[in-house]
């Protein structure tokens, strides 16, 4: 299972890039290009707040998966199973 978790890290990184592309191309850019001035506010929110949080978070999650940070160990003495060092 730990191997699957590691390989899935690639999927989360790819998903982060796809989400970033979708949010910028389909949500932010059309609103920046819109003739309505009020569309600038959601465009700015998409581009500078939501996208960095979602993409950044997923990228780091994918990276941690790839580097084995979420490997789970059998340990009967402790509650902590995910690596904590």
């Amino acid at each position: 299972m730990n191997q699957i978790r590691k390989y899935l890290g690639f999927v989360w990184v790819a998903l982060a890039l796809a989400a970033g592309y979708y949010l910028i191309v389909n949500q932010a850019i059309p609103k920046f290009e819109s003739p309505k001035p009020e569309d600038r506010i959601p465009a700015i929110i998409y581009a500078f707040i939501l996208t960095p949080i979602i993409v950044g978070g997923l990228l780091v999650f994918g990276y941690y998966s790839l580097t084995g940070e979420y490997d789970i160990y059998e340990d009967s003495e402790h509650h902590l199973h995910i690596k904590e060092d």
Partner: protein
Amino acid sequence: MSFQTEKKGLAGIIAASSVGTLIEWYDFYIFGSLATIIATKFFPAGNQTLALLSTLATFAAGFVVRPFGALFFGRLGDLIGRKYTFLLTLILMGLSTFLIGCIPSYESIGIFAPILVLVLRLLQGLALGGEYGGAATYVAEHSPAERRGFWTSWIQTTATIGLFVSLLVIITVKGAMSEDSFGDWGWRVPFWISIIMVGISVVIRMKMSESPLFAKAKAEGKTSTNPLKESFGHKLNFKFVLLALFGATMGQGVVWYTGQFYALSFIQNTLSVDVAQASRLIMWALLFGTPFFVLFGWLSDKIGRKWIMLLGMLIALLSYRYIYSEMYSAGSVKVKTEIAANTLVEIKTTADPKLAGDSIRTTTTHKSYEDGTTMKEISKLHIHADASKADVKKDTTISRAVTLDSSSFWKLIFWVFIQVLFVTMVYGPIAAFLVEMFPTRIRYTSMSLPYHIGNGIFGGLLPAIATFLATKATQANDAAQKAGEALPYDKPFLEGLWYPIIIAAVSFIIGALYINGEDNRTED
């Protein structure tokens, strides 16, 4: 401690914490529920759509600032204590709400009116961001570990009851006065009522003692000096924050929004059900569904939290398209048989108050259907005095209100109730789940951020992205129809559901594979 003593002591703590959290949700929802009327009062008049968009932007801002509130108040809660922090968030929320109800309209004070509304709305979002984590942490830290799911589930009911109370207050106030009075000043009453509820809740909370675990940690000098750095600057904890976000709160956020808000929006906009009937419908479903928060919280103490939440996500994502298809079949007049003989058309022509000589023709059509459903549709046509310009514009439908028959009404209640049931599965145990993921010294900060990103951002994006997807599908169908081609989408109104389905699916996979059901990082 005996069970009875524990029950008595904790019941008071739960009640005091829950009432405050409920009021915060109430405060937050009434703004959204009254968005249309707020638009006409505070945003430049002349173009209702633009005014509504401005308000929606404000609404979105309310959600976007929630994670920042989680950071600010979470840090404070881990530094000075839970009690004073969530007392502060309650006061901030109550005052902001009350003041929104006091702001003179745009006509009276011009641009200051929308600016003040925006500022107060942002403060509401900040306060809400700090409240939930505080209340959940406070209750959890009073609860014995083996009953944490049950006791914290009472906090989980507040978001739904808050929505219920907000709809109830608005309907009651509306019913107690004429439509004109409500539009004139009555809409302010739900905002004013908040200050009374907040006042009572503040007095109750003032009498509460600090969380025993935090008090113990403080007495032993074990509290954090820099909760933000410890929570997000250290990989050890940050990876759990990410796991909580992507494996739990992200999926929970979209299931929650779909079951409560998307359902309401679908009933009001796609099915055009009368606003009052749609609100009553949602209220019934919430009423029937609310006890299940406690049931699933209790169950999570017995069989674990992880699989109850994940099962809720899985069933939700697998059944959403079917449920909404059934809702459409039950509520849409497009699939009902009209009784043409009963159709009544009233045409009234009045002088245009803005253009001398021109007139406006208002056509009101009453239709009835075989199952007892009725529909009232109003359209307007501007008639030019200059005959050569006549009929340039077609009739524009300005409102359509469907009143469902009893059978369709209860069918829709059933389908919304099923969705609320999914909400209770994912949301009932999540407070205990999050609390147990993080240690006392940084718990408030660490659990608040993933919760508010999951709900505020992933959940908050749902209306915009779902509308975008459904609109694209409708446009594609329209284009195909014009070109005489086969329609690409059988049911375009279902396309918006791909957003919650995909997000819940990703969250389910991450939760299932990465969260160990036995993970419990609490040292208490």
